[in-house]
């Protein structure tokens, strides 16, 4: 940990003084807070945080170090981190590196020594804000310039930026898990996919082919998939016209689809729904979601700043899940039951694993659809 001064600016009036951690470069992004108490490595390496700076509400970050198994992507993940009190020591039998080094290798800049609760309360009251972490001389000027030049997330297609550039097959199951092949092929469209989603698809025995965000429907169909998975990812779903078009076309081919997070929003858009930007979104591991069929409540992991507008539900789409925090739509399903999606993160990592049954549901849907063929 350095003792090098760094500054977090939320606008020209409000700034926080702290110290630099990780890569010591100026950075800018939409500041969002995450309320998880565990799993900082997974959060930081989640591509959905592209262009965002994560303000951790839990004060000690870095306690257990980092390790290769808990990585959620090979890309950089977030644009920056805000920490109250990073751990100067790591303690866990799985640790391979410490947080500070990890941030450096991932090219992520951060600031620590910040009253993160104050930051949280500002965002809670005013909504997600663009902020900058800077250091050195003229910090104010640099920060304000960065903030001014920052292109807001609304209207921004980031999925294609973070997506894989080439097609590859994913072969690794979840931590300490095994699998049996089910002879079914899934094409997972990578809009910024988290590894754990791919691991959990693998756990169920699928052959998992990961393809770039801009892969066309024709290219996918040519791969003869039994199902298509629409991944999570950063940014605004609306400008991802290529994906919306692709999904629409796959719908006509009666291919089962399962979307998570951005994938859920894209499915919604393809089904004729609208998406809107939320005030400060959902970022945490304690979000109650109600399954409207069973009336069961699931505690879920969430990370999204956009949501499907509840005023835009077409007739052939059913709402399956609702957030009990703010009643936003958390799950939808087409009336032919071939396509469904979930706003939160059933793959957890980090967070509760209790709604993993959605992956089982996908397996069931894909299987029965394959039989019909």
């Amino acid at each position, binding site marked *: 940990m350095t003792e090098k001064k760094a500054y977090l600016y939320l606008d020209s009036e409000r700034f926080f003084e702290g110290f630099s951690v990780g890569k010591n470069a100026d950075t800018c992004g939409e500041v969002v807070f995450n309320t998880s*108490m565990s799993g900082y490595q997974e959060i930081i390496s989640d591509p959905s945080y592209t262009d965002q700076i994560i303000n951790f509400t839990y004060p000690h970050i870095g306690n257990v170090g980092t390790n290769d198994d808990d990585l959620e992507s090979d890309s950089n993940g977030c644009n920056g981190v805000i920490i109250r009190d990073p751990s100067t020591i790591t303690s866990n039998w799985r640790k391979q590196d410490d947080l500070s080094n990890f941030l450096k290798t991932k090219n992520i800049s951060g600031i620590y020594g910040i009253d993160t609760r104050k930051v949280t309360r500002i965002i809670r009251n005013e909504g997600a804000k663009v902020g900058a972490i800077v250091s050195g001389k003229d910090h104010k000027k640099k920060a304000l310039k960065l903030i001014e030049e920052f292109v807001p997330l609304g209207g921004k297609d980031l999925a294609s930026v973070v997506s894989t550039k080439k097609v590859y097959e994913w072969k690794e199951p979840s931590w300490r898990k095994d699998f049996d092949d089910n002879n079914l092929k899934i094409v997972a469209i990578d809009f910024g996919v988290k590894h754990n989603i791919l691991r959990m698809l693998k756990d169920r025995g699928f052959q998992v082919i990961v393809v770039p965000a801009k892969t066309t429907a024709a290219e996918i169909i040519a791969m003869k998939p039994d199902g298509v998975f629409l991944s999570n990812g950063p940014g605004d779903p609306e400008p991802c016209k290529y994906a919306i078009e692709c999904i629409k076309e796959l719908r006509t081919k009666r291919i089962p689809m399962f979307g998570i997070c951005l994938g859920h929003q894209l499915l919604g858009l393809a089904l004729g729904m609208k998406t809107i930007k939320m005030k400060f979104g959902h970022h945490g591991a304690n979000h109650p979601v109600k399954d409207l069929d069973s009336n069961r409540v699931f505690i879920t992991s969430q990370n999204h700043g956009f949501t499907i507008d509840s005023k835009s539900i077409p007739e052939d789409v059913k709402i399956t899940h609702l957030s009990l925090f703010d009643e936003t739509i958390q799950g939808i399903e087409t009336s032919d039951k071939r396509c469904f999606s979930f706003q939160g993160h059933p793959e957890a990592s980090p967070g509760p694993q209790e709604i993993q049954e959605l992956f089982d549901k996908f397996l069931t849907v894909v299987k029965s659809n394959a039989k019909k063929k």
Partner: protein
Amino acid sequence: MPKRNDLDSILLIGAGPIVIGQACEFDYSGVQACKALREEGYRVILVNSNPATIMTDPETADSTYIEPINWKTLEKIIEKEKPSALLPTMGGQTALNTALDLDQKGILKKHNVELIGATKEAIDKAEDRELFAKAIKKIGLKTPKAGLAHNLEEALKIQQEIGFPCILRPNFTLGGMGGGIAYNSEEFESICLRGLDLSPTSELYIDQYLSGWKEYEMEVVRDKVDNCIIICSIENFDPMGVHTGDSITVAPAQTLTDKEYQEMRNASFAILREIGVETGGSNVQFAINPEDGEMVVIEMNPRVSRSSALASKATGFPIAKIAAKLAVGFTLDELSNDISGGKIPASFEPTIDYVVTKIPRFNFEKFPQADSTLTSQMKSVGEVMAIGSNFAESLQKAIRGMENGKTGFDNIEEELTKTTLRSKLISPSPERLWFIGEAFRQGSSLDEVHDLTKIDIWFLQTIEEIISTEKKINKKTLSSRDFLFNLKKMGFSDQRLAALSGQSEEKIRSLRQKLNIKPVFKRVDTCAGEFETTTAYMYSTYQDECESNPTENKKVVVLGGGPNRIGQGIEFDYCCVHASMAMKEEGYETIMVNCNPETVSTDYDTSDRLYFEPITLEDVLAIIELENPYGVIIQFGGQTPLKLAQELEKNKVPILGTSPDKIDLAEDRERFQEFVNENKLKQPPNGMASNKSQAKSIAHQIGYPIVVRPSYVLGGRAMEIVHNDNDLEKYLDEAIQASDSNPVLLDRFLDIATELDIEAISDGSQVEIYGVMQHIEQAGIHSGDSACSLPPYSLPDKVIKKIKEQVRVIAKQMDIIGLMNVQMAYANEEIFLLEVNPRASRTIPFVSKAIGLPLAKIASKTMIGKSLKQQKIKNPSNLNHFSVKEAVLPFDRFQNVDPILGPEMKSTGEVMGIGTSFAEAYDKSQISAGTIIPDGGSVFLSVRENDKPHLEELATRLDQLNLSIVATKGTAREIQNMGIKARIINKVAEGRPHVVDLIKNNEISLLINTTEGKESIQDSSSIRRTALDNKIPCTTTLQGGLAICEVLEKRLDWSVQNIQDIHKSIE
């Protein structure tokens, strides 16, 4: 799925007296449950023998029985009240065990009472280790290698399979009582025999000892449609081997990756499902191998617990309240999370943005013969919790909240060799934390300390950092704002900084003011700031933003009592809660300050605003500066806040009620003596000495026996009766330490005097006496340990009248406003004043329950100027029932400790017996305290010289009761001379078979053993200890013996009556 409409009334069982392993947390949970159930329209019937609880206030439940908690009494209550259901999960192990008994005896079935919250099957599965292990295995999880033994032979066989070290636990005992860790066969056999004996089912579990494994706890809530949530994860600072109640614990878990945490979370839910906990709160304990993450399940409790109280306070999520609602049919999503103003449902998982540390509080200094090594058997008597922005801050705040003289990582004063230090690190003890600090101070490395303690390096590193930072502290460095601010961020107290830099605390405070360094207050909101909270539950920290938002209302601050300890327990929390309620009733905004997580006072619902803070001058002043209250109540929380009186006044804090000067007058020996003389009252002859020779010469003036004690103490700490110069000298070598360089006080000991406790309230012009309590045990036994009767059971009216007159004089002359407790002794037709306590006393809740008046409330109203007349309080003129308070002692927890009563308080709790006669009240109090007075068999009688005049009366009455008398030669001869049969038995020193053999052979069913003088006390100690170990009733006072006779002479099948009816009958 809304609440059930087929239930009409619900019976709730409390936890009974405060004992080690079961403390105020069950008052907290019980009160919440009562409130929650009544809110839903159910009629609540409550049973608890502990009068010092908010739950037994007549307003808390619809029908309240202060009666013994056992199936026989419960059956009577059930017959009378005909409840539709029984909720057994709110009163600890006591309630669960009683519920199981009721079920087993067929009483529930007979009266059609449904068990809600936990089924018999679930309780059995969770409590019975074999069934539990089977259940865990079934769901693919692991428990430690283990076996169940019913006798030593089986035990040895199991041991061979498991190896050493192994851990032994008797089945169905409180807090793991009687268990231990065995490293060799000798230890193994001795723990086995004790454990088999203590287990009500004679069953002993032998487990693989997971030495050095990390320990975790998960607090889980489940509803009937299988929604499960984790309220809080807790990580133990001390690794496996130390009872979790004796461990320092930290929330949330700090050294788990998310994957490991989620495995534990999933396992917790799977366990609740498998055990069959349908609704409510449970906790599950895990051990993790730090080398490879292997996880094993240690145990689960299918009820609310001490940990769930801690988890509730740590997160702001009221587990007991929610659990009660789930038990009557609600689901989590139908309930709202109050702290966020109902904006979010209860079906979510709290997330916190601070670190919580709990440190247990011990009282080993009161039991010098006890082994203070911490084991799997719980020994702590209380705990403190602290909230901070980081672990260092929360740890150091918790330390200074303990009120054990430590202000941080204070240096260890004694010389330490490397070997001693090593052994202090290896063996867990209450002081280990400071030895760890000392090890770092002396240059030990992180790895070295970890190797010896097995404590996770993540925790140790914080301590190392605190110590290395301490080395940089001096007058000069402190003048840097950045440095000082950083120190405060790490939780350093002003007092510690003062000590480290050689300045006064005041200097540090003014330095902080100069540099503008002061704490901010953040809110506990269950959601890490994601949602706005309307609840003012706060903690101090050194960060940017303050969220306290104090109002402009007229407000009163109540200072709580800090951690429970012997001498300062739940009674004081009861009084603080009442003070707060009274101020609310009078339209004041109420502010509570306390750091004890077990209590009702630290429920965010109790006061308008709650500051969860240590009760130290620094922390209290910060709150008062911010809140600017109309007044502060310091007289209700016991010695902890009272000690701050002078300093607070010096800092211009408006103190309500009796002034700090008068408090000092009562506490300061010299001033008090002057006061006594001025008012022509009488004290036992006394003197004060600051050295040995002075003490001796005063002793000769006064004459032996003498009570010696240091000044300014509560609970009779270090108080002793000495009979000669030798004893006195021995005492003085120890007392100087105990008294913080205060002088030693010597009082003539009034032998065979009747001691009295009097509770009065004065509003400045009117003095009302609400209770005169006669102690059953004669003077010389600490009032906290003595049973007492209200009204007096054998005191002439004219004496009572005279006593009342004197009390009035005292109250007037001392300018008492509020509560006053007076202790007096009556001997040789004279009344002696022993002490005046211008504050809440331990007996306030007892008297309040006995006479049906909320004394603490009434007193607090007088403190804000509302006279007794204005309050229209009618002091009952006549009571047609007796109430007896009996103390509950922790001797069974401490092996080798002589269970004798004396001037130093040793009890942890109390019970109350109510009856139409003294005999009924006394008998019930004994049953509640765990003593069944036998109505047959042999009684061993041995009385000291001074009690001999009463021997004939005692022997005659026992004889008429058909108890055969056994006595040692001298006494037996005397009894025989009275024409009463007595069997002669050897003293222990006289050869065998002797009295201890007889006790061990179950040939004695009662012991009356009075003794005096260090030597004869030592000689007879094995008699009392053996009696205790064999659960044979033993009284160590003559008056106790006579009270037993009284009970046996009048005993009937006592009936039960609720206090609401009793209070109605009071004139």
